[in-house]
């Protein structure tokens, strides 16, 4: 339902997004029936297509040509998909968006090769763009995203980590790819450097806000809404902002510590989720997300008025208020 609402916000992009959806399907077409199935399985699980949307919206500030824009939008979504399929192996996730993950439906090896295949398809696509700057940004982003994930594993179960560690992690994990989507959309449509920089920063701030909300929803949503068990981040040892804010309460800290890195029963899991939900951690995290949202909106104020800014503002507000 929420995803539907989000899609309504950029309904004026529907024809282009439908075209990108078809391109994505073609991009994962493979001679291997199994790879085809696994990739389509992943693709059909859907997603908000946030990255292609930001590429297209950023393109509206320059010479918008869908045939050029899709050469960036498609690979960015493919890169995101490839990282998801590998993340499910890392997190041993059985379900994503309410559907079995590739690793659950087949096995870890098939998930690994599916991810490699999709990433290679993304690179094959992006090479149609000749601009060296585009490749510099994208290759750097790929590396930083991986480093973010490595740091995430390094920081797992570390209840005593500082906030800076968390922000550094989500910057690399989420914000950079969204920021690059905006910047690359701006670059390939030939906007001026100043506009591209504002769009890049908008993407970064909105990405940070988006991830914090995601981390809040992991505690505040139901299993059904999430399509996976609530509190999954905590169970997997990922210490997110609501927990980092909530741990100030000594009692809660002790409780979290006691439940960390344990095989929790459903009842125990609910207790942890409930404790975080009732703590000040949720409100504090929301406030932090709001700060990033405001920063994102400020970047939009420097951009030429028009449909692009309007839609970006609506998406930004939606992200700040989304329920799952």
């Amino acid at each position: 339902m929420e995803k539907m609402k989000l899609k309504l916000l950029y309904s004026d992009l529907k024809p282009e997004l439908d075209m990108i959806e078809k391109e994505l399907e073609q991009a994962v077409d493979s001679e291997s029936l199994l790879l085809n199935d696994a990739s389509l399985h992943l693709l059909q699980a859907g997603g908000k297509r946030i990255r292609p949307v930001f590429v297209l919206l950023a393109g509206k500030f320059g010479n918008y040509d869908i045939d050029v824009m899709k050469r960036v939008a498609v690979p960015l979504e493919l890169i995101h998909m490839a990282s998801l399929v590998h993340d499910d192996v890392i997190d041993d996730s059985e379900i994503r968006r309410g559907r079995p993950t590739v690793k659950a439906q087949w096995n870890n090896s098939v998930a690994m090769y599916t991810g490699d295949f999709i990433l290679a398809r993304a690179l094959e696509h992006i090479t149609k763009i000749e601009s060296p700057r585009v490749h510099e940004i994208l290759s750097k982003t790929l590396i930083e995203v991986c480093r973010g994930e490595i740091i995430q594993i390094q920081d797992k179960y570390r209840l005593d980590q500082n906030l800076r560690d968390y922000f550094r992690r989500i910057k690399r994990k989420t914000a950079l790819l969204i920021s690059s989507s905006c910047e690359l959309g701006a670059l390939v449509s030939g906007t001026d450097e100043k506009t591209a920089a504002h769009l890049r920063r908008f993407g970064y701030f909105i990405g940070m806000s988006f991830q914090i909300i995601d981390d809040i929803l992991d505690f505040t949503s139901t299993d059904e809404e999430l399509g996976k068990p609530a509190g999954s981040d905590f169970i997997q040892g990922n210490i997110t902002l609501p927990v980092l804010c909530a741990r100030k309460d000594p009692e809660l800290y002790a409780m979290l510590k006691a439940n960390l890195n344990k095989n929790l029963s459903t009842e125990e899991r609910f207790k942890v989720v409930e404790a975080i939900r009732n703590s000040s951690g949720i409100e504090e995290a929301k406030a932090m997300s709001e700060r990033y949202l405001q920063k994102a909106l400020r970047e939009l104020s420097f951009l030429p008025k028009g449909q692009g800014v309007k839609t970006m503002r609506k998406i930004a507000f939606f992200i700040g208020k989304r329920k799952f």
Partner: protein
Amino acid sequence: MKGHQIQSKIISMEIEVLHAVRQRTLDQFTEGPSVKESRLFFLLLPFFSGKTWSPDIEASAKTVSIVYAALNAHDQIREDTPIIKEQQLTVLAGDLYSGIYYQMLVNTKNIAMVQQLASAIIKVSESKTSFFEEEFRTVEEIESAISVIETELLMSFYTFYGYTEYALLAKQALLYIRYTEELNRLQSNHYSHFLREVTTKLVHENYTKYWLTEKLDSLHEQILASIADCALDYELAQFLLHQITPHQHRAEQLTREG
């Protein structure tokens, strides 16, 4: 070029690869990047035999090695069990190496090679996945999948730089090495997907052993012929036969003849 010079160049390439992909956490918790000596040898073969070899080509060869390391990391992931920290980081190591190879080629403005390698990775991934498909395959089709897995990345490098004269020799030698490994696995009862599938087709493991031995002998004959076709100098041929594809009986014979 003398044998020790060849060895030294291979080691230096290996060190450069290690250096390029270094990451503290990965160094601490994973086995680190691994590229077989045989693959490095064939990547460097045009250089060893005196072909045009610019710094850009050398950089490109290094990126192919990094792609091998990336794909190899993902081969180390266990199939069905939940994975532990080392394995989680091995998944990310493979992804990081992929990012690094892309960035290195971008830095040398070699976008065409990015495309070439991406297409090769697609074929390799398709072939690796084919071992999990349920459809019936002939032994020849299985062999063809193995050939792609072992040689496609190298072939894309050779094709890109016009070193195709070494393609046949490299294919034969890399297949020879793979089948030797499979024979060793068979003898120690460590069945790979390849062995399981071939044994199913050939009905019994004894037939698989026989098939592999025959294959190895035949490939060895072909390697000797290809060495002559490529006009490799004596030292290089000896290094290939003794260090890369050791086949004791035949190698001794060649040494005597040489």
